[in-house]
């Protein structure tokens, strides 16, 4: 970085705009927070390791990952609250209710095995070995 190159000042607005496009205007405060966090982290890492080849991409990736982390935690918290409120969810269905409940069960299985809806791991979208198991 050249002296006088105002990376942080320049990136701040650009990153907040990009993150708001990705996560929605209602997450503006989140976007601002994760940009600040990314700047703090950048200073801690770069002061010792030096500035990376593409500092803008580094900052953006760091901020975006932080935002995804926060949103995932929020989603899990919301889901837990919903589950806690609806006490019916984990009772055992009476045999008469089986056919009414089957579509919901199918949907859950589909999301789990084919769309990779799995709270803790989001590394891959499709979990091939589970699909094979589920279909076999």
């Amino acid at each position, binding site marked *: 970085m050249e002296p006088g190159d105002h990376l942080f000042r320049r990136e701040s607005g650009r990153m907040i705009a990009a993150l708001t496009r990705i996560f929605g205007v209602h997450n503006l405060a989140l976007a601002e927070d994760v940009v600040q966090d990314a700047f703090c982290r950048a*200073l801690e890492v770069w002061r*010792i390791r*030096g500035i990376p080849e593409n500092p803008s991409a580094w900052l953006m990736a760091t901020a975006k990952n932080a935002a995804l982390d926060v949103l995932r935690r929020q989603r899990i918290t919301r889901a837990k609250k919903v589950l806690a409120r609806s006490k019916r969810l984990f009772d055992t269905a009476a045999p008469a209710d089986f056919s009414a409940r089957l579509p919901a069960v199918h949907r859950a299985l589909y999301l789990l095995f084919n769309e990779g809806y799995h709270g803790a791991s989001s590394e891959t979208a499709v979990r091939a070995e589970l699909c094979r198991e589920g279909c076999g």
Partner: protein
Amino acid sequence: MSEFTYLYRGGRDTPQSPEQRQRQLQKWAAWFKELGANGNLKELGHPLESAGMVVKGNQKIITDGPYAEAKDVVGGFSLIEADDLAHAVELSKGCPILEVGGSVEVRPIMQINM
């Protein structure tokens, strides 16, 4: 020449404007450049995450940690070559962390003469 580690502590929680961050980075780069040019920088070293796990004792008790005061947590380290401890201390005075409330701990690396 003997080897030393610089342990950087604190200086990470001061609110900073984009310009202050920029200046900090430039000062660190200049400081390391000077150390390198004079043959005093053995290794840049690494920054450290502030929280990890601590494993303790025969029972191998695992706790989150270190969770000391932010100013006491080691935030990174470098390897330095200097004539003696006094020289290493003198060189550390240029570290920009000192300007933002942080500290540098200078520790000689034990010499093993085989």
